C-alpha cells in the first residue's frame, strides 16, 4: 500500500492493527475490571460490616457500577472560579494516563505483552512515579486549602514510599538479573519453590504495603482523609473529572497488584507447575488473574480492618522501618547470591 510516496508493507499494517487491537483490548479490560472492583469493594466491605452492599440495580446489584458511571457522566463538571483552569482540567488526565500506559509491558501470559521492552521494570517504575503529578496539580489548581493540604501530603507520602518500593524492586532485580518482565516471570515458572516471594518475603511485604501507600488507599489514605480534609486533592472535582480520579485510583490498585503478582508470585506461572496435573499445572492468564484478585481482596480487607494512620506515623513507617529493612535484606541477598543459595540464586 502507498500513501503519497510512503510504502506500507502488509506486515507493517498487520503489526499496527495487532498493536492497536491489543491496546484497546487491554484498556477496555482494565476499565471493566475497575468497574467490578468497585462493586467487589462495596460487597466485600458490606459483608465484613454485616451489611448487604449494593443489591438493587440488576441481579445481586451487578449493574451497580454502570449506574454509578452514568450518574457521574451526567453530572455537571464544576470548575471553581479561582481555579487555574488549564491545570485543573489537565490534572485528571495526568493521573489516568500513566495508570493505563503502564499496562503495555505487563506479561499477561507466556510471550504475551504489548511491548516486551528489555527495561520493562524500569519503565513501570518511571510511569508509576508520574501519577503523583496529577494529584499535586489537582490540589494546587483547585486553589482550595483542603485540596492543597491533600496534595502536599500526597507528594510527601508518595515520594517517601517510592524509595522503599524501589529498594524492594532492586531485590527482585538482583535475584532475576533482568529488567525484562517476561524473563523475570519465566525464571520463576519451573515450580512454586522458584517464586521470589520465598527468599524475598520481607521485601514482598514492604512492596505490598508501600503499594497500598502509593495508591493512597486505607489505612494510608490521609491524602483524602475525609474526617479532616474532606476529600483532599479532589475536593473541588465533580462529574467526569472526578470519575477519572476514581478510575485512576482503582486502575492503579489493579496495576500494583498485578506487579506484585508478576514480580513475587510467579505471574502467569501455575503454583502446581512441575507436577503432573495436566491443565492445572499449565501456565496462563488465569493464574495471573487469580493472584491479582487475591491481592486486591487484601486491599479491601485492609480498608475494612485498619484505622487510618496518622501522617507522622506514615512517614516513620516509611523511612525508619521500611528503608532500613530493605537495605538489610538486600545485603543479605547479596551474600546469598555470592554463595548461590537455593534454586533462586543459582546461575
Amino acid at each position, binding site marked *: 500500500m502507498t500513501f503519497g*510516496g*510512503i*510504502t*506500507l*508493507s502488509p506486515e*507493517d499494517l498487520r503489526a499496527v492493527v495487532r498493536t492497536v487491537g491489543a491496546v484497546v483490548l487491554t484498556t477496555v479490560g482494565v476499565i471493566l475490571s475497575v468497574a467490578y472492583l468497585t462493586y467487589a469493594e462495596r460487597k466485600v466491605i458490606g459483608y465484613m460490616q454485616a451489611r448487604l452492599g449494593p443489591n438493587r440495580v440488576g441481579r445481586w446489584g451487578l449493574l451497580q457500577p454502570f449506574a454509578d458511571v452514568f450518574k457521574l457522566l451526567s453530572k455537571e463538571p464544576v470548575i471553581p472560579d479561582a481555579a487555574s483552569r488549564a*491545570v485543573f482540567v489537565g490534572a485528571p488526565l495526568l493521573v489516568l494516563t500513566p495508570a493505563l500506559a503502564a499496562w503495555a509491558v505487563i506479561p499477561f501470559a507466556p510471550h504475551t505483552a504489548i511491548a516486551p*521492552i*528489555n*527495561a520493562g521494570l*524500569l*519503565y513501570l*517504575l*518511571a*510511569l508509576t*512515579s*508520574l501519577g*503523583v*503529578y496529577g494529584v*499535586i*496539580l489537582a490540589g*494546587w489548581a483547585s486553589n482550595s486549602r483542603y485540596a*492543597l493540604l491533600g*496534595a*502536599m501530603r500526597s*507528594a*510527601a507520602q*508518595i*515520594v517517601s514510599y*517510592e524509595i522503599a518500593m524501589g529498594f524492594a524492586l532492586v531485590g527482585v532485580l538482583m535475584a532475576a538479573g533482568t*529488567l525484562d518482565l517476561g524473563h523475570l516471570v519465566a525464571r520463576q515458572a519451573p515450580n512454586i519453590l522458584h517464586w521470589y516471594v520465598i527468599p524475598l518475603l520481607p521485601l514482598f511485604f514492604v512492596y505490598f504495603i508501600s503499594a497500598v501507600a502509593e495508591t493512597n488507599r486505607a489505612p494510608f489514605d490521609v491524602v483524602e482523609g475525609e474526617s479532616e480534609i474532606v476529600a483532599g486533592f479532589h475536593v473541588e472535582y465533580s462529574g467526569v473529572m472526578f470519575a477519572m480520579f476514581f478510575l485512576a485510583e482503582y486502575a492503579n490498585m489493579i496495576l500494583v497488584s498485578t506487579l506484585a503478582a508478576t514480580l513475587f508470585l510467579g505471574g502467569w506461572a501455575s503454583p502446581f507447575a512441575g507436577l503432573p496435573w495436566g491443565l492445572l499445572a499449565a501456565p496462563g492468564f488465569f493464574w495471573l488473574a487469580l493472584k491479582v484478585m487475591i491481592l486486591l481482596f487484601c486491599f479491601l480487607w485492609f480498608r475494612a480492618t485498619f484505622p487510618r494512620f496518622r501522617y*507522622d*506515623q506514615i512517614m*516513620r513507617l516509611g523511612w525508619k522501618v521500611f528503608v532500613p529493612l530493605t537495605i538489610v535484606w538486600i545485603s543479605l541477598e547479596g551474600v546469598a547470591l555470592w554463595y548461590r543459595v537455593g534454586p533462586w540464586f543459582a546461575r
Partner: protein
Amino acid sequence: MTAAHLLVEGVFGFFATVLVISALGVVVARNPVHAALFLILSFFNAAVLWVLLGAEFLGIVLVLVYVGAVMVLLLFVVMMLDIDLVVIRRGFVRHAPLAAVVALLLAFEIGYVFWARHLGLVSLAPPLRPGTLPNTRALGLRLYRDDLYPFEIAGFLLLVGVVAAIVLTLTHREGVRRQDPSAQVRVEPARRIRLVDPFPKGTPGKGGEGG
C-alpha cells in the same frame, strides 16, 4: 522512504518541537509553578528523543529520576513558597533584548561549529556500530565493570547531597510537642496512676460520723 523511517522522523519532529516550546515556556512563564510544569514537559520530551536515539535506559531513568523525583521536590518547594510575582518579574522586559541577542549569538555559534564545512561534521560519515547487547545490559557492564570507581564516587556524592540537604533545612524549633511512640508503648499503669487514700486510717472524717 519506509513507514518506520517516516514514523521516527515524525516522532522526532513532534517531540523536538514540543521540547523547544516548553523550554521557552520555562523562561517566559509568569508563575513559577507553570515554569516548573514546562520544565517537566521538556524533560519528558527530551526523554523521548533519547529513546529514539537508542538510549532507552537513560531515557527511562531521566523520567524516573528527574520527572518522578527531583521535579516533584521542586514543585513541592515552589508551591510551598509564597512568591511575590510582581517583585520577582521586575527587570524582565528590560533584560529581554540583551537575552535574545546573547541567545541568538550562542545558538549561531554552536550551529556554525556543527555546520561549518571546514570542520566537516555534516559530511562526516557515521561510524555507527550497532551494539549487540541490549542498551541496559551494555550500560550496566560499563558502569559496574569499567567505571566502577567513578560510579562509587557518584554514589558517595549523592550521599553527601542527602546529608547536606537535611543539614541545611532541618531546624529544631522550641516548644514543638513531639511524640515518642516507644515511650507511649512502654507506659505502665504504675507510673501513670498513683492511688491515694485521701483519708488515711485514724484521721478525722473517715467513716462518715461527721466528727
